[in-house]
């Protein structure tokens, strides 16, 4: 009986593993097959030879280096921006018993229900009035804004778990509020803050629709916008597409691998308290 349950458990774990990995395996294999072998029958699950032809074509046929650079600039600056801003507001919400604290949290939570497309054109109007269309800065600002509500909620959750008595002791010792925050509270919440950062990086790296709306020249495209344009672009088949997809997927996977523990703690204890 015991062996039976153990066997079932291992079997179930294997099934989950295979199910989770198949899409990744398939897209990587496709990208390494080379343009011809992709479209041959019968389908080969192990390529006869590894070819980097698709990647070569991706970087010569399209400006993928530029897209990658754009994505990196926008995601990193937005993640830093959102972290910097919500580090303070999360702390303030957590520590200060102002009357509309509850409403503030609800207002932040409510933003999660708003479809991006609903605010897109109004935003476009605002930014075009000040001549800020098709600029990486604009996208970074929009992404910072996009990440602020959830980051603030997460940050508040992290600060809630730091006992107030620690800061009170520091204040008695003559520290100012801001000093207490930087010397005592922030070092204790570093894992949480890195979770917020990684969460923002993942989400901004993956964002498609705002970028499509605001970035209309090839030199300003981010990776998702580029992939979207590949769909209808002549001369681009599944060879280039699969190589592009692998490169689009890798960075967030790496971030996730490193930050998984913190993100999990951040999401579970900060945002959704059980």
């Amino acid at each position, binding site marked *: 009986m015991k062996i039976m349950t153990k066997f079932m458990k291992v079997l*179930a*774990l294997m099934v*989950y*593993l295979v*199910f*989770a990995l198949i*899409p990744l395996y*398939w*897209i990587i294999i*496709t990208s390494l097959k080379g343009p011809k072998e*992709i479209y041959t029958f019968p*389908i080969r699950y192990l390529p006869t030879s590894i070819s980097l032809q698709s990647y070569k074509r991706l970087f010569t046929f399209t400006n993928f280096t530029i897209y990658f650079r754009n994505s990196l600039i926008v995601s990193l600056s937005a993640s830093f921006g959102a972290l910097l*801003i*919500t580090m*303070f507001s999360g702390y*303030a*919400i957590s*520590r*200060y018993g*102002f009357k509309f604290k509850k409403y503030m949290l609800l*207002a932040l*939570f409510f933003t*999660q*229900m*708003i*479809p991006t*497309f*609903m*605010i897109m*054109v*109004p*935003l476009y109007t*605002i930014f075009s009035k000040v001549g800020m269309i098709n600029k990486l800065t604009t996208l970074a600002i929009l992404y*910072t*804004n996009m990440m*602020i*509500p959830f980051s603030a909620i997460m940050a508040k959750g992290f600060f809630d778990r730091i006992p107030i008595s620690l800061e*009170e002791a520091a*204040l008695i010792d003559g520290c100012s*509020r801001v000093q207490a925050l930087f010397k005592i509270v922030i070092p204790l919440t570093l894992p949480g803050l890195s979770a917020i950062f990684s969460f923002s990086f*993942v989400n901004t*790296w*993956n964002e*498609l*629709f705002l970028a499509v709306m605001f970035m209309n020249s090839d030199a300003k495209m981010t990776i998702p916008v580029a*992939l*979207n344009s590949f*769909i209808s672009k002549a001369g681009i088949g*599944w060879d280039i597409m699969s190589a592009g997809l692998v490169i*689009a*997927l890798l960075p*967030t996977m790496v971030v996730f*691998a490193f930050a*998984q523990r913190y993100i*999990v703690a951040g*999401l579970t204890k900060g*945002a*959704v*308290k*059980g």
Partner: protein
Amino acid sequence: MKNKNSKIFWIMITPTFISVILLTYVPILKGFIIAFQNYNLFNLSNVHFIGFKNFWAVFSDTNFNFLRILLNTFLWVVISLFFQFILGFGLALLLKKPFKGRGVYSGLVFYPWALSGFAIGLVWAWMFNGQFGMINDILKRIGLIHRNIGFLSDPKYALISVITTNIWYGIPFFAIMLLAALQSVPTELYEAAEIDGAGSFRKLFSITIPYIKPTIINTTLLRAIWIMNFPEIIYAMTSGGPANSTNILATQMINKIYNFYDYGQGSAIGLVIMAILLTYAIIYLKVTSLKELEL
């Protein structure tokens, strides 16, 4: 001590305040107004109020049957959520007890969580491809089908194909959340139940589930909202087609804006989405008697 430093607190909170108001709430108000206007992106010189006409136009659209879109939205949310939850919960239960290599294993099964829905939609579109897709190939090899199925081009299969992709994508979210909750259940509870002779199922239903109920409620609530507002996978795989068969409210909104440049009707659909979500959130919280959404 709470009110002494109020000035500093206001300074700390102001950037968040300004950002949320200026770049989210002001645009959303404008979006509200646009929903009642004739607002075509190619004819911006002729913007004027038209009452509820955008809504009627959306509801009575003969090319994109609205009831079908509502049904698709319902199926998209409910089926995806159900299987994401069940399979995610199952995975969390499997991972509850430590075993050798659990860290690496969870990294390998959780990674879809970090991926772009749009990119994943494209990957699965390639897998479901009617000619060169691996899913057709495997089904043929094991003899389940004899001729290729147009998973994304046949209205009979398209919705189930995009939902399958969404299920795959969403399992890690529930597994991660529920695993953390499971690990917070005090082991003494299980020990006591074992002394009373409770079996695994008994323990699951009378200890585990009641104990992690708040997490279950919060995660399903958040996830339902999120799935309803999540057009990326469908957009990448079918764009709502073929013949409206995978069109949900969120993709119809994109369709109206991208293909018809009709931002008025697009915003009207946006309002419908928000109204449904708000009603849903209120009812859900009332029924599950969770007085305050704890964040």
